[in-house]
């Protein structure tokens, strides 16, 4: 009886149950899943013994969806229905996705752009959800248990829309996201815990489609990100594209055919890999007319093609060091992450830039997933005494549109998260009763040069003379790097708030609909699913409050206060058996209300505990 345990804390603290948690590296080219098994983080393999899942999804006309290497094989013969590098389209609008040649037919919709396939139009979020669902299955089958939660990695330089899209994809795949973790930070965790390094480190992460640089300080298990910079559209893909375009020029053909583009890209990638170990490579391309073009690519030409891309990555490196306030001499080690750092030229140029040979002895493909698995294990509660703490930053400045199309920065880039900042604005017309709030992300001064995240309106402001209203706009960025904006008129208390639903994001009801349409969920009744969700939530809340009571009830509550909480838990338990989603939801809310004061007391106690031992006297 759980409730008896509550009333007699101390006697019945059940041993903590080990929960299954995983780290997922959702990459542009490949994706991986890792978990901590008997104290060691390992990547999980599929039935063929492969740990890397190509991030390729193929839609077939029988509605069958194929993910991974089988889909990758089909890319050259069925390019329109085989989606690769979908990460590049996450959180992006129609204009963004049409910038580079990719061979897909994008459809403009009211919300996110969709790719036309034989199985219907799909958004980038849905395609990513297929990849995540595949990895979820791999983990649960391999470990014969249900996943309690996952940490999913994202490029540090991902903006709010891209992060939100990733979280939406996880929700579609039925995953409980414990945290979105920045890829270089994940790599630092894996690397730092492995080597016990201290001091300032640079993580240079060049993946298939994204580039990140993070400068971190490692100290007693604390990973403090000092600054991060990058380019969310720069990676190995661009090297392939540069080679592909050059090959097309050499062959004297236009790239106006999706099949040809795919053949060029595949050959380019092969050539890039071959040039890691030799001075030249022979190229073969089947052209549209059926003839074959043959050529060769020398290492000198290859360098000439990719040097501008490597140079492009060094500009963010400089900016990150400047923001972190460190010089190259202060950086102890440069850690290379991401498959594209296998290219020897990249290592050479990065080594020159930082005046020290970069560290390449950790597997650049696995390290991000390993780091994510380690954090997932800690977050899910399997290591209660762990000293690890990750302090990350916002990659891009967040601001608001002001008069004249200018952006007023509210939170500058490289601010440690979570962070809350408020700024006061006023009305500019007499009797103005509404104010539009336009939220932007980026470093430039003009609205048009920044990314629009969301627009909302504060209405029902009481009419006043211009400049008399005091409108407080608060930006709150959580530990996942996601933004919530609230606007309140101070004199009247009128409030408006948005959980920033990016301009290029999915609406909640769209996600609901997708969840319903999802093949995996089609069998379930919608009501049954809702009930199950509430039951899971009820169990989670019950367990959380129960644990809090065991820990702190004696110290912080009197009998009466404890009685109120215990009876709200009893009510929650009853509602849980009752099989009505609405009733369970209500009971959860009541339990939450009943513990409000207790939660505040607990937080205060932790603060006091953290500071105990430090007194003013130390300094006198």
């Amino acid at each position, binding site marked *: 009886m759980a409730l008896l345990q509550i009333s007699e804390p101390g006697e019945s603290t059940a041993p903590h149950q080990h929960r299954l948690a995983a780290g997922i590296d959702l990459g542009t080219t490949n994706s991986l899943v890792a978990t901590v098994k008997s104290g060691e983080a390992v990547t999980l393999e599929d039935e063929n013994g492969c740990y890397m899942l190509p991030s390729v999804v193929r839609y077939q006309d029988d509605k069958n969806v194929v993910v991974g290497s089988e889909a990758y094989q089909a890319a050259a013969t069925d390019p329109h229905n085989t989606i690769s590098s979908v990460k590049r389209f996450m959180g992006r609008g129609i204009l963004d996705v049409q910038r580079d040649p990719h061979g897909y037919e994008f459809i403009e919709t009211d919300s996110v752009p969709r790719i036309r396939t034989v199985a219907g139009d799909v958004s980038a979020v849905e395609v990513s959800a297929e990849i995540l669902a595949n990895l979820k299955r791999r983990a649960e089958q391999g470990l014969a248990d249900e996943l309690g939660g996952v940490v999913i990695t994202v490029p540090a330089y991902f903006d709010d829309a891209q992060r939100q899209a990733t979280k939406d994809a996880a929700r579609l795949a039925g995953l409980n996201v414990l945290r979105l973790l920045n890829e270089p930070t994940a790599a630092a965790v894996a690397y730092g815990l492995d080597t016990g390094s201290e001091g300032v480190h640079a993580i240079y992460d060049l993946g298939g489609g994204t580039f990140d640089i993070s400068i971190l300080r490692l100290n007693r298990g604390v990973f403090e990100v000092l600054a991060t910079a990058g380019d969310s559209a720069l990676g190995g893909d661009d090297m392939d594209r540069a080679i592909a375009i050059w090959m097309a020029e050499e062959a004297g053909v236009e790239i106006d055919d999706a099949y040809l583009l795919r053949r060029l890209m595949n050959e380019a990638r092969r050539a890039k890999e071959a040039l890691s170990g030799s001075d030249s490579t022979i190229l073969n391309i089947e052209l549209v007319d059926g003839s074959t073009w043959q050529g060769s690519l020398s290492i000198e030409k290859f360098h000439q093609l990719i040097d501008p891309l490597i140079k492009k990555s060094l500009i963010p490196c400089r900016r990150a060091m400047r923001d972190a306030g460190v010089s190259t001499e202060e950086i102890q080690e440069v850690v290379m992450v991401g498959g594209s750092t296998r290219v020897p030229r990249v290592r050479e140029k990065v080594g020159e830039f930082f005046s020290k040979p970069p560290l390449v002895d950790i597997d650049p493909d696995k390290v991000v997933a390993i780091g994510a698995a380690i954090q997932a294990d800690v977050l899910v509660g399997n290591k209660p005494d762990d000293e690890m703490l990750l302090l990350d930053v916002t990659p891009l400045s967040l601001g608001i549109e002001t008069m004249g199309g200018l952006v007023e920065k509210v939170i500058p880039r490289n601010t440690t998260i979570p962070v809350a900042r408020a700024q006061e604005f006023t009305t500019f017309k007499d009797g103005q009763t509404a104010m539009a709030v336009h939220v932007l992300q980026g470093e430039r001064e003009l609205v048009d040069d920044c990314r629009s995240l969301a627009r909302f309106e504060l209405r029902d402001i009481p009419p006043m003379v211009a400049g008399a209203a005091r409108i407080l706009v608060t930006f709150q960025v959580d530990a996942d790097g996601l933004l919530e904006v609230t606007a309140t008129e101070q004199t009247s208390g009128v409030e408006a708030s948005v959980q920033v639903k990016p301009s290029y994001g999915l609406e909640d009801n769209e996600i609901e609909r997708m969840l319903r349409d999802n093949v995996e969920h089609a069998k379930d009744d919608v009501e049954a699913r809702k009930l199950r969700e509430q039951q899971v939530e009820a169990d989670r809340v019950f367990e959380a409050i129960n644990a809090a009571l065991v820990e702190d009830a004696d110290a912080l509550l009197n009998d009466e206060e404890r009685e109120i909480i215990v009876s709200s838990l009893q009510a929650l338990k009853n509602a849980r058996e009752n099989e009505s989603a609405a009733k369970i939801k209500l009971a959860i809310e009541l339990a939450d209300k009943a513990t409000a004061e207790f939660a505040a007391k607990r937080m205060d106690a932790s*603060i006091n505990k953290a500071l105990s031992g430090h007194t003013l006297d130390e300094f006198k």
Partner: protein
Amino acid sequence: MMGRNHFELFSLPVSFDVDIDSLSARYQDLQRSIHPDNFTSATDREKRLSMQQASIANEAYQSLKDPLKRAQYLLSLNGIDVKSESNTVMDTAFLMQQMELREALDDTMDATDPLAAVGIFSADVETRIKDLISQLQGHFNDNTKESLLQAESLSLQLQFLYRLREEAEDREEALL
């Protein structure tokens, strides 16, 4: 955490002299217990509370770590709002100096080696910043009404130099 000022939050004496190492250590100890990572399986209310408290701790840490922000915060604790620049009378000598420094920065672009010239300029600004910080220290230690007004004027000067340093860095970046 409500009602505690930034210094009290880290059990530090209210002073311009802050030992950055112990500030960092206390900040990390605090985050170890209140950071949202400790609350992933807690109730939504506790999660929210932790996010708010961790945000406050981050804000407090940032405002004490940097000398300019620390000066501004100390002045605000003394009822002087430095962010409203409108009602401050700037020292004429400093205004002249401002103009000269700005011109000097512009001139670096015409130098034979602009990158080296910007480098020399930045080093000069850095020296001026260090000098202002040590002057600020003296005034805050005196802690009289007169010295606080001096500190206010110096922190405005420091703010200007920070901006100039940033502009010099921007130009340096543009030259690369």
